[in-house]
């Protein structure tokens, strides 16, 4: 249960119950859909990108607590960032949840209190111990990247 409480932290349960920036975004100029066929997670990400900056970001859909909380957290963190900053944040998140980020250990992330991004992302680091759930955590981010890239393709994680 220790690992599970690590995975289902209260912040995650809160974002799952009360997702931020949830619902379509009027006047969005980019959007993409994502699908995780394994558990049926469906997500849409809507963006307003202005002057190379993510002016606003919303999402909607349904899925497990990990996918919903990750999407909700993501929207909070992306607002106001440049495209380059947003992509860098995705890379960082991806490295953390897949365990590929050397030196970005969970403890290292959380202890560096100057790094607010790291602190916020770290609530999802528990996913690393659950390989089949990594795609739940990354679905929203992949969908966001597709919206940014205007691929027009539904993102499928499996």
């Amino acid at each position: 249960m220790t690992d599970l409480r690590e995975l289902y932290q209260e912040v995650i349960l809160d974002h799952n119950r009360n997702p931020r920036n949830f619902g379509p975004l009027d006047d969005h100029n980019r959007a993409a859909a994502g699908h995780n066929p394994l558990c049926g997670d469906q997500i849409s990400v809507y963006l307003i990108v202005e002057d190379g900056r993510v002016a606003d970001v919303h999402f909607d859909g349904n899925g497990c607590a990990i996918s919903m909380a990750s999407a909700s957290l993501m929207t909070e963190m992306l607002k106001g960032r440049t495209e380059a900053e947003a992509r860098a944040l995705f890379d960082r998140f991806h490295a953390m949840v897949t365990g590929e980020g050397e030196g970005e250990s969970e403890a290292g992330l959380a202890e560096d209190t100057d790094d607010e991004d790291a602190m916020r992302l770290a609530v999802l680091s528990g996913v690393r111990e659950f390989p089949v759930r990594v795609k739940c955590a990354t679905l929203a981010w992949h969908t966001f990247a597709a919206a940014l890239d205007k691929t027009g393709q539904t993102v499928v994680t499996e």
Partner: protein
Amino acid sequence: MSGAAAIDRAAGFDAERARADFPILHRPVRGKPLTFLDSAASAQKPQAVIDAVRHCYEAEYANVHRGVYWLSERATEAFEGAREKVRAFLNAADSREIVFVRGATEAINLVASSVGEALLGAGDEVLITHMEHHSNIVPWQMLRDRKGIALKVAPIDEDGALIMEDFRRLIGPRTKLIAVTHVANALGSVVPVAEICRLGRDRGIPVLIDGCQAVPHMAVDVQALGCDFYVFSGHKLYGPTGIGALYGRADMLERLPPYQGGGDMILSVSFEETVYAGLPHKFEAGTPNIAGAVGLGAAIDYLGGLGLDAIAAHESDLMAYGMARLAAVPGLRPIGTAPGKTGVLSFVMEGVHPHDIGTILDGEGIAIRVGHHCAQPVMARFGVPATARASLGLYNRRADIDALIDGLVKVREMFDR
């Protein structure tokens, strides 16, 4: 003996004793005793099956139907012996009516291909139900795209039972094949296949039954049913993966063209002409899954030793116990409540996605399936993206249900913090 075990035994079947036959059930998972409740996805294997496969490779293996030497004779005998066991298991009239396939998926694709070729044309209709596994939907859609047939879908009610009135109404002059599941994999609903076979027979419409979720739980007699095709997968019947069977009535199979071409399915080949072999070899191109068939035969022997009726009574008791205990879990909604349902307990939980249920239960050593169960139209019918599904095997006991309920209470606690 604990109270729960005494009750398990009272059903006339000793689940504790049967458990001893399944080595994997005794390994710990995540530091906990394993509670395996996913037999509808794939059942665990008794020692007898493991030994039979091992013996095949260690002592009696060579290619079948080819060698004139001793080992090939032994292997052929074991392989054809397994066919005879499948014949007896389904009470088919003749072992020539049993075609070995990779599983039910291949069997249905075979029928779709061969029946599609010989008996179906543009505008003809294939009738299925709303609760089919994708494997009894997609092959017909592929045939629709290839030949212009139409797919008709009979609806199910709120309990997940087939609405027979509508089913009957959907049988029309263009209906050329009926393909239905015997037991719905996501719901456990038992389809009245005997009645459907009667309807088909009266109108000269062939009937295919997908028996994957039925054969582990009840005795099946294809002659009594009067079906034209009956298919199942070995791995859900406690046998190996990669082996299954297609029963086809001989006069029906004789009318059909082969599915795949190759070795072992011919009498003679020249570049001008090929003469196909007789049944069942016409449908078995290439070297078959020899050890898989032998293992399947061993699984059938094993089930015969326990008695399918005793297994059915035991599982029926467990099902009633499980449904009653699930009903007492706050915020839990069962999906699939048809009377007489068998094998599966599907449900959703208020405010918790099935995938999260699955992960938390896994932490307790409890294996269930979560997701759409390859039956997305069923999920759509009940307005859920996915369900959690606990499914029963002969080795499950009330203690497994109790562990599941305790686990669900932990799920609630985790999410209600």
